[in-house]
């Protein structure tokens, strides 16, 4: 895995002002958190009406911390998660990861960041249907800078064994249950040993028993890897195990 220092050596970490025009290291706090949000907001315009999905959010997440954000559907929690993950651009404010303002850099930087430092687990079945379980887990290797190097199949198989799917490495998604598919997605999210795992309603469509299993699996592996874990959910019970629980309502985080 590339270290943070190695990432800083890349051209993406140059002092250029990026697409937002903001300076890359503009005003992070003196003690660098893994994730820091300063005045992050997102609004949409629908016709004449401006919808404020996320309003001026400030947030710090330290390495290895488990933070849960709870809120109703449409409260803006998924949008917030996607801005932290570099998937959608904030209308205002800055998102710092390891002290770097990710939206001040170009798209290639954020792609690299997502590949190397961030893992995603989505609410929906997020596997590529034409690939086997092991190939789905190997996708970060295919898409990342290691493309062309050794395939690291043994790492992918080890991860699948870790999530209890050692017997299903060659199964296609259509041959797996919902819970099994979610486990494969978790294995894929953790493949590059990310520093931050972002989960958006990760157990939304699973039964209670599977939900508990998947949750336990994510927590355990995050602890093992010292990976910070940010989960958004509408399920209060699931959030109870978090180090910090935050509430999101009408775009405001409290």
């Amino acid at each position, binding site marked *: 895995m590339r270290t943070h220092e190695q990432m800083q050596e890349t051209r993406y970490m140059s002092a250029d002002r990026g697409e937002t025009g903001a300076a890359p290291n503009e005003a992070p706090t003196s003690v660098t958190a893994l994730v820091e949000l300063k005045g992050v907001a997102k609004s949409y315009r629908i016709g004449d009406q401006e919808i404020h999905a996320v309003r001026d959010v400030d947030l710090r997440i330290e390495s290895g911390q488990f933070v849960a954000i709870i809120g109703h559907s449409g409260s803006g929690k998924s949008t917030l998660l996607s801005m932290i993950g570099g*998937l*959608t651009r904030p209308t205002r404010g800055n998102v710092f990861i390891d002290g770097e303002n990710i939206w001040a850099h170009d798209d290639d930087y954020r*792609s690299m960041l997502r590949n190397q430092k961030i893992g995603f687990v*989505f609410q929906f079945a997020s596997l590529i249907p*034409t*690939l086997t379980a092991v190939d789905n887990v*190997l*996708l970060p290797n295919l898409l990342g800078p290691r493309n062309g190097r050794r*395939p690291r199949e043994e790492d992918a198989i080890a991860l699948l064994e870790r999530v209890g799917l050692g017997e299903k490495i060659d199964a296609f998604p259509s041959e797996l249950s919902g819970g099994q598919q979610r486990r494969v997605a978790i294995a894929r999210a953790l493949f590059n040993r990310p520093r931050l795992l972002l989960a958006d309603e990760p157990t939304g469509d699973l039964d209670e028993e599977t939900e508990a299993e998947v949750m336990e699996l994510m927590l355990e592996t995050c602890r093992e890897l010292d990976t910070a874990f940010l989960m958004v959910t509408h399920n209060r019970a699931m959030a109870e195990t978090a180090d910090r629980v935050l509430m999101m309502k009408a775009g405001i985080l409290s």
Partner: protein
Amino acid sequence: MRLFSLAVQNLKRKPFRTLSLALAVAIASGAVFSTAAVMWGVERSLDRGFSRFGADLLVVPQGTLVGMRTALLTGEPSTFYMDGAIAERVRALSGVAKASPQVFLTTAEGDHCIIGDAFLVGFDPQSDFTVLPWLRERMERDMRPDDVIVGGRSEYDIGQTVYFYGEYFTVYGRLERTGMGLYDNAVFMRIDKAYDLAEASKRFTDAPPLAFDESQISALLVQIRPTANVDAVQFAIAQHPGARIITAGNVVTSVRQNLVALFSGTVFLTAVFIAGNVLMLSAIFSTIVNERKRELGLLRAIGARRRTLFGLVLSEAALLTTAGGVLGVAVGALVLRVYERTIVFHLESMSIPFLWPAVLEIAVMAGIGIVLALLVGLTGAAWPARTASVMEPYDAIRAGE
């Protein structure tokens, strides 16, 4: 696993759609390949035929232009005669290097000719510069008066005996194939023997006698000195009453006109078909990108760069259309081979000479057909690929919610 195999897997998802698109591209590339092969064959035939023809000018009787052109291109017998004295007068012109007379005759249907309606050409070995230099194979001795030379497509073997108007001849040699009918199909003999045949033909009552005598020739082939003014020589020859001058350019132009008439429609339709393929691919790949929006967004979330998605979509299109191109070229080659005789027959009926392109040329045309198919894929998928690459990952992931 590589991105290439991901593209292959994606194509396998909808086999019917993939196959249909590949077939559509195959038809277009097959049409391009076949048309190019036939046109190239005609061009090759013209180049080869005229480079070996060796004559800069052909002097024929007035009013026989069409007949001479047909004889040259298809080898169809054509007989016409003029005063042979023109040969000496033309030779005497200062710009003329060589002038060789030929006389054309046809064989009669009957027991006294081995075959009826064959095209015989009498040539003068002393002054000839268009027949003897192009012998591909011959007997191991000098040519004798009762020898004949056959064209490149003749079925007669070297050493075989043939007979015309009761006179027996030995097949002495065979010319190289040129695609020009006259040199591929006719039987060449010494001009004095041709005059003998005219006399001999009068002995038979079951066919009209050959209607020429020793004072007449059918055509005079003229080679001009390199330093001479071609226009001046042409002008001087044209002063002879009853003479008409044909240049290689005249014949090539007429062939090209026929070629254009035959293929312009095909070329236009092929161009329309290719453009249709590009548009169809563009529309279908737009649908494919739309169908897979969430997956593409997911790949971005995992770390795919914009150009990676652009490349992925283009790779799928390139794979599909290249496969179609290969299929089209293969089927095109098969069709050309199966219908070879029919194609040649139709071309010759339109006075268009034809010689199959060489293997290397066929390979080049096949390559062009396949590259064209690849370009169709890349062009058609360029816009959908760009759309896929510029989508905001979050919007793509939420597609369908």
